[in-house]
C-alpha cells in the first residue's frame, strides 16, 4: 500500500476561546494506518480530535485533509471534509429520539434518500451485526448500556465507508471481550477497506493490538509522533511511565 499522507497539520495551536490547550502540533496521519493518540487526561486529546474533524477552529496553524487545507469558516469546505470522515464520539452521541436502526441509517436517510428501503435495511443490519448490535436495533439509546451505545455509534460512524474514522475512547467502559472485539473490527476495516483510524485510547492492550503509529501529547505539545515499534523502544521517562506503568518514573514525573 502507498504511504500516502491523509491528514497533516502544520504548527497547529488548539484550545477554546483563545486559551491554548496545546500548541506546535505537526501531526501526520498516513492513509490506511491506525494512529493512536495518547496522553494524560485533560491534555487535549479530544480537543485535537475536534479540531482535526473541523468542529473547533484552531487558534493558529492549519489542518490539511488529503492535501487540501480545511477552511474552518467555509461550511462548504467543512462539508467536503465531513463527507469523507466518520466520528465515534466520547459520549456516543446517538440521537435519543431515534432507535438504533434509525440512528445508524441516518446518514443514508438524509444524504441518500434514493437508496431503497430494502438496501438501506441490509446496509444497516450488516453494520449492526459487525458490532454485535443487530438484535437490539429496535431499541432506543436510552434503553442501552454505555458499551452498547458505543458499538452502535461505531456502526453509524462507518455506515458510509468513510476514508478516516475518528474514535474518542472507543473502548472506555467496555468489558475486555467487547473491547477486543472492537479492536478486531477496526483491524478488519483497515485491512479490508483501507480505512484510516485516529483513535484516542488509554487501553494498553488495545494499543498493542491495533496501533501502527502513535502520537503522544504532553505538556501542551507533542512528545512523540511515529511508529509504535519505535515508541516501545524509547527511553523517554514519560513514555516509559505511560507504557510500562513504571512507578518510579511516574513519581519522578509528577514531582
Amino acid at each position: 500500500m502507498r504511504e500516502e499522507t491523509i491528514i497533516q497539520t502544520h504548527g497547529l495551536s488548539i484550545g477554546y476561546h483563545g486559551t491554548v490547550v496545546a500548541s506546535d502540533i505537526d501531526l501526520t496521519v498516513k492513509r490506511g494506518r491506525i494512529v493512536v493518540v495518547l496522553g494524560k487526561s485533560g491534555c487535549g486529546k479530544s480537543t485535537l480530535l475536534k479540531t482535526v474533524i473541523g468542529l473547533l477552529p484552531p487558534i493558529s496553524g492549519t489542518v490539511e485533509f488529503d492535501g487540501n487545507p480545511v477552511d474552518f469558516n467555509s461550511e462548504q469546505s467543512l462539508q467536503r471534509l465531513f463527507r469523507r470522515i466518520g466520528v465515534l464520539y466520547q459520549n456516543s452521541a446517538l440521537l435519543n429520539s431515534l432507535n438504533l436502526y434509525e440512528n445508524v441509517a441516518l446518514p443514508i436517510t438524509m444524504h441518500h434518500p434514493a437508496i431503497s428501503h430494502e438496501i438501506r435495511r441490509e446496509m444497516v443490519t450488516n453494520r449492526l451485526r459487525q458490532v454485535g448490535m443487530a438484535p437490539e436495533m429496535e431499541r432506543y439509546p436510552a434503553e442501552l448500556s454505555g458499551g452498547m451505545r458505543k458499538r452502535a455509534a461505531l456502526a453509524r460512524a462507518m455506515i458510509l465507508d468513510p476514508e478516516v474514522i475518528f474514535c474518542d475512547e472507543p473502548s472506555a467502559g467496555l468489558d475486555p471481550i467487547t473491547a477486543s472485539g472492537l479492536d478486531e473490527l477496526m483491524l478488519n476495516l483497515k485491512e479490508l477497506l483501507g480505512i484510516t483510524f485516529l483513535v484516542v485510547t488509554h487501553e494498553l492492550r488495545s494499543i498493542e493490538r491495533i496501533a501502527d503509529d502513535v502520537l503522544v501529547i504532553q505538556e501542551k505539545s507533542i512528545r512523540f509522533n511515529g511508529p509504535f515499534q519505535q515508541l516501545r523502544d524509547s527511553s523517554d521517562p514519560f513514555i516509559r511511565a505511560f507504557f510500562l506503568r513504571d512507578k518510579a518514573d511516574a513519581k519522578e514525573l509528577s514531582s
Partner: protein
Amino acid sequence: MDSDSRLHILLPSRLVLENYKEIQNHLGRLNPEDPVLLDFSQVEQMDSTGAAMISYLNKTYPDIRCDGLSPRLKHMLDVFTGTDAPTPDSGEPAKTLPSSHWGESVKQFMVLMADEFAHVWHYLWRRRGVYPGEIHHQLFQMGYGSYWIVSVITFLVGVTIALTSAKQLNDFGANIFLADVVGFGMIRELVPLMTGIILAGKVGASITAEIASMKVLEEVDALHTMGLNPEKFLMVPRLIAIGLAVPLLVTLANIVGIFGGMLVGKFYSGISFKAFYQEMLTIVELDDVLIGLGKTLVFGWVIVISSGFKGFSVSRGALGVGIATTESVVLSISLIIVLDSIFALLMY
C-alpha cells in the same frame, strides 16, 4: 520523650465510617499541645473515613506517634492518604464561557433568525435536510401537547375579563357592550398573549432543554460531522410545526375564551348567547381575527427561534441545560410582551 509520658490512645478495632461519632468524641478531646501516642494494636478494620481521621490528626498535632501499625494498615494508610495522583496537564483553566457581550448575543440571535428563514425557505423548495416525519411528530407534540392547557387558561381568562367589565357596564346600564369588550379583547389581545405565554412555557422550554442537552451530549456535533446542518435539521421542523399548530390553537382559544365571556354575559348580565354573538359581530371583523392570528404566529416563531438560540448557546454541561431552559422562557415571554406593545403602538 519516651512513650510512657505520652497520652496513650487506644484506637478501637473498627476504624470505620459507622463508628465515626464515637471515634471523633474520643479524639476530639485531645489537646494539640500534648504529645500523643496512637495505639493501633487493636485496629482490625479501616476504611477511608478512618484513614482520613488519622491523616487529619497527623497534620494538626505536631507531636504524635503511631504504634502497633501492622504492615497492612500502614499500606492502607499510604493508599488512602498517600501519594497524589498526577493532575491533568492543563496549566491555566480554559475559559468555559465565551465572553458574551450584549451586542454579540443580539448579533448571533439575528444571524440565527436570518439563517432559519433561509433554511425554511430552502426546505420548502427542495425538501432536503429534515428527518422524514419529523414535522408531523413536532406538530403532534405541540398541538396535542398544548390544546388542553390553552383551552383551560383562555376559558378562565374569558370569564375573568368578562366579570371585571360586566360590573362596570351593568352600572351604566350598558350590559350588552360586554360582548364587544370580550370579543375584541380576547381575539385581538388576550388570546394571542395567553397562547404565546403558554407556548413559551411548554414548547419553548422543551425545545431549549432538548437542543441544549443534545449539544452537551455531542449530538449536535455528531449531526454536523454527519454532514447535516444542525440548525436546519432541528429547527425547521419546529418552525413549520408551530406555524401549523398556532392557527389551530388560536381558533380553539378564541372559541373557548369567548364562550367563557358568554357564560358570564348570560348569568351575570342577562345577555342571551344569540344577542351576545350578534352584538360581537358588529364590532369584531375578520381582520381582527387575522390580526390576532398573525400576532400569535409571530410570537410562535419568536419562541422557537429564541428557544433554539438559547439551546444552541448552552455551556457548562448538564447544569447549563437547566440554566438555558429558564433563560429561554424568560427571554421568550419578554420578547412576546415587548412585541405585543409594539404591535399595539402601531395599530391603535
